[in-house]
């Protein structure tokens, strides 16, 4: 029986402050919520009235929490994804050359040169302008790509699997920082590095991964790195070194010493190497929660440099789009805000899974790098709990008494609170060929969430 009349009364109020004050004056334990009018109009109302939502969201969260991610193989995209010649994948929602931003174009040019489909940037552009290459989002094949996220058939991919569902996800090998394909650079050094990764690094990683008796548990490494100052998006230093520790002995046993030395130097010198394992692990987590009718939980956030797109559990693979925003943060060298391209990359899958910007409180070491302060970082993570379905105890944040990472972005909570997901990100130069110009913070456009609530409302049965 309802204990309303027998329990001591504790209240919460939303609305007129005077009614809250009247309770305080009576000495009642009461909390006033910081309320603001919700966005989303009738569609939000109808989704809140949908009796499937509450149960569906609980299920989505539990599927995310029960998912896993182990590294099962390393192999070329042609094998892993059945990617054929003339087929490229890219980050974010679908885009064609005519609407592509500078860094996306630069990366596609680099991909043409790398795959020897053109012998100059100009020749590559001519082919791309005529849509001579089939472009498709990474997410459509269950893969993820950082920044421009361009994947070509001969690039080597990490292959991860979720033991709870059997799902697989893939991501290319990280090239390092500066002038690299994913930031839109296509100079000869970029192509030479990609060649070495294809000819030496990829096969060596494959030997190491295949030689291990047990798969490397990527999710377990993420859990540890969160306690070592990484947030899994803009800081992956601890994760990278733990990964190298687990794999290096097997690479040494299977490779020539000069190759292994160069590979170890390359991986160890690139703090972001492990990002390309965190991302597919996060993809497996959110993919586990896909396609639950009535669920308003976000399963994908991704950007192509022009558009920001999200997908939700209850709406399958439909994209809800708004304009990509330009990040705020710090710039490398002489670059300024004028040089930065709007937001780009599938790496926001980390925030979708509750780490990255959502777990900023775990990474005080990098708050200045992206233009923030330690109190900002704590406030950011606390704010993200307001828009999430729950918490992930596997990713405990030490400074918050090991409270689990805020997990399962709920579209209805975003619209009700007006709080947008906080994303940590790198910034690409807006002119094709520039490379990285900085790093900072960005949010999705609210339009993506108002479009998603309409998509959810139209599916109410």
């Amino acid at each position: 029986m309802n204990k309303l009349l027998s329990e001591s009364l504790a209240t919460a109020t939303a609305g007129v402050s005077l009614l809250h004050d009247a309770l305080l004056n009576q000495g009642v334990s009461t909390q006033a919520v910081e309320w603001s009018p919700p966005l989303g109009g009738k569609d939000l109302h109808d989704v809140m009235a949908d009796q499937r939502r509450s149960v569906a969201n609980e299920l989505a969260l539990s599927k995310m929490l029960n998912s896993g991610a182990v590294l099962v193989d390393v192999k070329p995209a042609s094998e892993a994804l059945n990617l054929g010649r003339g087929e490229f994948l890219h980050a974010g929602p679908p885009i064609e050359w005519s609407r592509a931003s500078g860094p996306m174009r630069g990366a596609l040019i680099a991909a043409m040169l790398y795959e020897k489909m053109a012998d100059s940037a100009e020749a590559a552009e001519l082919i791309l302008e005529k849509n001579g290459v089939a472009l498709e989002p990474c997410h459509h094949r269950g893969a993820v790509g950082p920044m421009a996220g361009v994947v070509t058939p001969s690039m080597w991919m990490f292959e991860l699997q979720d033991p709870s569902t059997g799902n697989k996800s893939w991501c290319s090998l990280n090239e390092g920082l500066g002038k690299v394909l994913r930031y839109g650079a296509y100079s000869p050094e970029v192509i030479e590095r990609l060649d070495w990764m294809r000819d030496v690094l990829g096969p060596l990683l494959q030997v190491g991964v295949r030689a291990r008796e047990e798969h490397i548990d990527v999710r377990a490494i993420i859990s540890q790195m969160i306690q070592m100052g990484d947030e899994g998006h803009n800081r992956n230093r601890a994760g990278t070194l733990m990964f190298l520790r687990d794999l290096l002995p097997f690479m040494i046993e299977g490779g020539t010493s000069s190759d292994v030395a160069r590979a170890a130097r390359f991986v160890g010198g690139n703090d972001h190497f492990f990002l390309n394992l965190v991302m597919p692990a996060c993809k497996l987590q959110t993919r586990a929660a896909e396609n639950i009718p009535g669920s308003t939980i976000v399963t994908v956030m991704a950007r192509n440099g022009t558009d920001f797109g999200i997908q939700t559990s209850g709406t399958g693979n439909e994209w809800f789009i708004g304009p990509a925003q330009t990040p705020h943060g710090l710039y490398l060298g002489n670059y300024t805000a004028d040089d930065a391209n709007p937001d780009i990359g599938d790496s926001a899958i980390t925030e979708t899974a509750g780490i990255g910007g959502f777990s900023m409180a775990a990474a005080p070491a990098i708050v200045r790098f992206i233009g923030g302060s330690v109190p900002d970082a704590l406030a950011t993570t606390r704010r993200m709990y307001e828009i999430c379905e729950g918490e992930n105890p596997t990713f405990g944040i030490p400074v918050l008494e090991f409270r689990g990472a805020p997990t399962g972005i709920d579209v209805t909570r975003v619209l009700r609170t007006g709080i947008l997901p906080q994303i940590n990100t790198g910034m690409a130069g807006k002119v094709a060929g520039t490379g990285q110009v900085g790093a900072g913070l960005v949010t999705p456009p609210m339009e993506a969430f108002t479009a998603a609530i309409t998509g959810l409302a139209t599916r109410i049965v």
Partner: protein
Amino acid sequence: MRRIEIRPGFYRDSVSLMQVSQRAGVGIDGALVAMATPLNVELAIQMGFVLPPTSPNDLIIAIDAPNEESLSHAFDVVEEVLEEQLRKSREQSSESGITPARTLGRTQGARIALISVPGEFAFIDAVDALENDMNVMIFSDNVTMQDEILLKDIALSRDLLVMGPDCGTAIIGGVGLGFANVVSPGSVGIIAASGTGAQHLTTLLDHAGVGISHCIGLGGRDLSSAVAGRSAKQALALLEADEHTDLIVFVSKPAAPEVAQSLKDIASGMKKKVIFGLLGSTGSDITETAEKVLDEIGVTDRPWVNEVATAGSTGSTGSTGGSLRALFAGGTLCDEAMLIASKRTRVPIFSNIPLEKEWLLDPFGPATSHAFIDFGDDAMTVGRAHPMIDSKLRIERLAKEINDPSCGVILMDVVLGHGAISTPGEELSATISESSKPIFISLIGTTLDPQNFERQKAILAQAGAKVFLSNAYATHAALDALGVPR
């Protein structure tokens, strides 16, 4: 000179904004700081402002002042007060050491959620609270019937109670929620489909020395055919099981006959006695209901039969001519008075909440015959605080009626208690004292209310009003003054 500023998407609740308007309006011609709801836009236009297109989520700052200096000063005051309110709420939250939650579902340990957000959004917050196992009181009005039914069905499936929408009053375990008077603890449990009805019944019982266990609010529509007493049935079960309750009293505006019957059927199978006080042409008024309760428990004291304070002139003898104008803050009190007036005069009683459809009155226009205005009606509170919080519209109307030759007698209520204005008598007294017409006031309150009952009674009487504890008795006295036969 006039200047208007629109701040898109800037939200503050109507009570806070009323305080801003009041502070900014001192010494100038007019100040309206309010959300751009249709009602407030209309008010701004009436004040002579020209508005750009707005949405109800935008803030209007409209200032009318004699010169540039006072105009810009008023804008500075608006800014200051808005800032001050923000600072105050931040200080409150930092004192408690917790960042305030942004949604009810994220608060910790609350067992009841009190929702007073604008009505169109109240459903969303109520669903959130129910899904997080909170009982809900919805103070907001302007919630659709369909949403009310859905909320009550969700609550029933989770063994939770929804009080409202448009539930102004509840007292749970001695704690007043919304507008509630400070009453003594006792063993009478009240179920009320009417906020001011509940306030009136609890205060009458208190004056007679009878305390209450709980007062469960239902919202004004719970006993309609469509809602079918969903919350009422739960409330009966809760009070039947409550160890502190011996006698149950049901008070409501006119109820759908079949719903009233089904509740009586349930009550007849209960161990505890249930007294029904349903207003209506065949029902009893609130004072009669209070008297039935006293009869049941053997209390003979009836402290409300005479006026409790007056300035001295008798006034109630003989006819004054003209018609009766009643200006109510409490909807049920207005209903009750109309039923009494209709029965005694046998002529149409015009109102914005009329007893008969044909008796509809525009509450902003002049009246020619008997007219009863409920200033707390939904249509008059969109984007504006309830008249028990903001008395401006009612005082303006009172001044008009005093000068209207067709008005003979004025009837009003003054409701005290938690949530209501702290100085209602002080706000009314200057206008009342200008009246040459008799003004009858039902003063709804108890001696423990924060406003100081004795002081309010004295102020109103000194201004010239005739003060009653009972709304029914005040109404009868007003009709007597008009010369209407009993």
